[in-house]
């Protein structure tokens, strides 16, 4: 594709010269989302999310009188005893370390203690204190966060319903946002990384981004569908399809711009740095932004069309348009082009004084 030009492609999408029948093929997208959703539920059900120490609490090992406060040997010591464990190590004061891990068995604890004694030159009986540590992100915090999200979703749904003056649109937006969240959680569970507070923050960001993206796409649908009932050239579905095609360039640009920094953190973070907050956060963000941007186009708008075609006014209008077309016996190609939504005329209006030249001030 040597001659491929993004701007020209954008032109063709805008004018409807080139059009992808995204809305018409909605059964396919619904099927894909359905399969992904069921797969996510299955993964979450069977594998589950592995909650980290912040949610479940764990074991805390305090090491005193260490010779150095290097954190590397402590991580190594824990990982020798418990492979795959990602301890959190912090320095306390000037000669003590705090190591937090998920709950360890007494055998594991004593093994960790031996390695630590070797690494730091301390007496395992005197200088190591083991205790349990409770969750910093307890059920209280989770409940508050959950309530916040529920209220936020309801408020956002109400806002969308009022702004677009169509509750079906808001339902479509919210449903696709929730499916984004489900699929992102499924992917996260599949990768099997531990859920940390950063992951939760990442998921909340996804909610925000997904809803934001749907607002932008829906606003284009709204703009295109303005006055759709007062003409008989194309149906609501066709206009919505044109809107999706017209925002395609924007959606691609936005997702690339949003994904590039996150991808940088994810790949550098995961490949070079190993585990850590950054990795958890960037994975949930990366998946969520990609899924969210795609679902605005392939799920939210088709879903909106599917729902709104049940609205009596729009159903009646669609039937009228199709009947008019059938009666006109027009060329099938013309019909196809109309179906792509490209014949979209906006009626002119009387401009009144606005058409007159303006007197220059000053």
């Amino acid at each position, binding site marked *: 594709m040597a001659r491929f030009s993004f701007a020209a*492609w954008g032109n063709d999408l805008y004018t409807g010269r080139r059009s992808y029948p995204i809305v018409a093929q909605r059964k396919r997208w619904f099927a894909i989302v359905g399969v992904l959703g069921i797969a996510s539920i299955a993964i979450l059900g069977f594998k589950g999310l592995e909650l980290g120490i912040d949610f479940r609490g764990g074991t805390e090992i305090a090491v005193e009188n260490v010779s150095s406060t290097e954190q590397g040997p402590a991580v190594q010591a824990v990982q020798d005893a418990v492979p795959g464990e990602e301890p959190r190590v912090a320095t306390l004061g000037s000669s003590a370390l705090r190591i937090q891990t998920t709950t360890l068995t007494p055998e594991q604890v004593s093994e960790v203690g031996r390695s630590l004694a070797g690494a730091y030159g301390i007496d395992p009986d005197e200088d190591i204190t083991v205790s349990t540590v409770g969750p910093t992100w307890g059920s209280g915090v989770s409940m508050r966060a959950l309530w*916040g999200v529920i209220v936020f979703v309801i408020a956002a749904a109400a806002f969308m319903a009022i702004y677009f003056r169509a509750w079906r649109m808001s339902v479509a937006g919210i449903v696709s946002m929730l499916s984004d969240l489900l699929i992102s959680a499924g992917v996260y569970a599949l990768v099997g990384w531990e859920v940390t507070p950063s992951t939760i923050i*990442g998921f909340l960001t996804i909610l925000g981004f997904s809803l934001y993206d749907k607002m932008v796409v829906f606003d284009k649908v709204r703009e295109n569908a303005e006055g759709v009932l007062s003409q008989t050239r194309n149906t609501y579905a066709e206009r919505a399809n044109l809107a999706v095609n017209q925002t395609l360039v924007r959606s691609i640009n936005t997702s690339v711009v949003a994904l590039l920094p996150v991808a940088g953190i994810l790949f*550098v973070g995961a490949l070079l740095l190993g585990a850590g907050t950054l990795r958890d956060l960037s994975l949930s963000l990366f998946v969520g932004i990609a899924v969210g941007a795609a679902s605005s186009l392939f799920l939210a708008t088709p879903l909106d069309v599917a729902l709104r075609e049940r609205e009596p006014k729009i159903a009646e209008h669609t039937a009228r348009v199709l009947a008019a077309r059938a009666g006109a016996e027009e060329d099938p190609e013309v019909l196809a*082009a109309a179906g792509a939504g490209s014949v979209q005329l906006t009626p002119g209006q009387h401009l009144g004084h606005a058409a007159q030249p303006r007197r220059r001030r000053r």
Partner: protein
Amino acid sequence: MANSSTRRSRPVRTLVIFAVLTMLLPFAGLAAGTYLDGRSDDNPDGASYAPGLALDLQGGTQIILTPTTTDGSQVTSENLNEAINVIRQRIDSSGVSEAEIASQGGGNIVVGIPGRPSQATIDLVSTAAQMRFRPVLTYAQGIPMPEPSAEDGTAPEDGTAPEGGTAPEEEAGPAEEAPAEEAPAEEAPADGATQDVPEGTSPGGRSAAGPVPAPAVAAGLPADTATPSPTAPAEDAAPPADPSDMAQITPEVQAQFEALDCTDQENLVGGGGDDPNSVLVTCSQDGTTKFVLGPVEVEGTHIRNATSGLMPGPNGVTTNEWGVSLELDSTGARQFAQTSQRLYSYGQGDPRNQFAIVLDGLVVSAPGINTPINDGRAQITGSFNRDSAATLANQLSFGALPLQFDVQSQQEISATLGSEQLRNGMLAGLIGLVLVVVYSLFQYRALGLLTVASLVVAGIITYVAISLLSWGMGYRLSLPGVAGLIVAIGFTADSFIVYFERIRDELRNGRTLQFAVQRGWQRARRTIYAAKAVNLISAIILYYLAVGGVQGFAFTLGLTTVIDVAVVVWFTHPVMELIAKMRFFRDGHVASGLSRERLTMSAFKPRYVGAGRVAMPEPAATAADVNAEAEGEVPAGEPVDRSVLVGAPPSTPAVPVTDASGRRLTIAERRAAERRAAAQSAGADVPSTDGENEEGR
């Protein structure tokens, strides 16, 4: 060129005002703050050019608290969870610092606070949460009395106490104005009342020499206007007849009361050890007044809820008086009903009319009773301002826990994330940013520079805002916060992308750049506002409902959303208006990103090209092409050699009525079309329509 917009836009002026208001002024404020109130080891909350970092990035202080119950019972895990919630609430209410709070070993509470917290913060965390209501027996100025008064404890009756207005006096509610004014005439603490009025805007009890806040309690509901109960206990019945019995002031108590020096800091430390069943001699929190208090009547654990706000007046209209609304559970309401009826029966002016809110052994506030309160809903009004009302409400709602905390250890703790990790993460983010710049330059050519400049402006404003907020309200940037800012790049850039795409759409419709900018902005603006509104709603709701890290996230989201809208409205758009006048962009230079050739090379709609001529577009792709292209086989921009225009005259001999643009054809045009159709069906080779030949006729 002041074209057709009704309000003339002045991009330069907008830009200058924007730069001054959002960048120079805040930066100057920050610089001044750094100079005057710089952050140092002694002043951890001071201003600095570097934003404060949270526990995970900077480390901080780890405090281990051991809770013990005040009533000698076992500390249960529910108690512990409750205590964790209380502490979290207290820390959150003092700013967005994202502290870490967890239980440890089943009995301790570990609190991690970023940076080096001030003593006030540590006190806030470890203050014993023990709140009780006791009846006031008597009170006096908070210094030892030089000559013991001979009276049986009603000290303020004579002239020793009132000087300096130390004796509190209840400020009557609006309905009770008359008795309050009457009181000074016959009662000694007269100037207490008069002093209270001018001090209405400052927390009386907080100022050094002022009186203890002596607010009045009014009935919570207007309907609740029960008259004083006729069955109010007689005050001089047999000893401990009721908690207000003056017989409780034994000579020892009197001596202790007289000796008490509330100016001595040691007496103001408080402590949980007071016996709920006996008399308590203590000071007010600010040390200006000392009290003799009766046994506990209502335990703080019965407080269900306390809020502060502007209080409604007697007719339900909100007055501009700050106060605290208090709600008790059913037991507390019953106890408080009895107490308030008895206290009310003493009448205004008698010290025993007041009850004391005792926190950790010290009197927080000693309001008088205006009217008996039977339903457990009380309002405390008086000399409050917004902050003091909020403080009291906070103490009341979270002071309901029968626990006290001993600070077991206090240690510095390093960042839980390695500094190396942060550095590499930042590096990764920077690489991503460079890629964003490259991509937007590739996509929008020179216009991409505007994206980059807008992002830089947004970045500067965000940086200054965060620095200011970490000075003003203790905001601390955590790693999720940093990641939120990086994601905000996507949100922010999207505003520009939406805007630019709308401008391009308008150019594709054949408008000149200036008109395209104007119309594109009108349409993009609506989308941007609507989408950002959703973000802002989510941020506000999460900020108010969630706690801890989620709250910090919501704060970052809201902040970046507001900054983003400000930048696109007051920076990107004015600059766009300016560069629309530059020849490079106006004439659509091929590198400008607004090149007409690139944007309209296959434009479908007819375009007016001047001199009464309309450029007709190239033929459209057919449905078959569309599907083929949908598979990505045919490159875009390839001239497609099909002759069918959508809505254009079909190649059947039927007479067309409209042309491609939907305009009704003239009779002559229609005849010509008929002729052409006839010729075509006769087999003559009429060249297919292309370019501009159709309208040239």
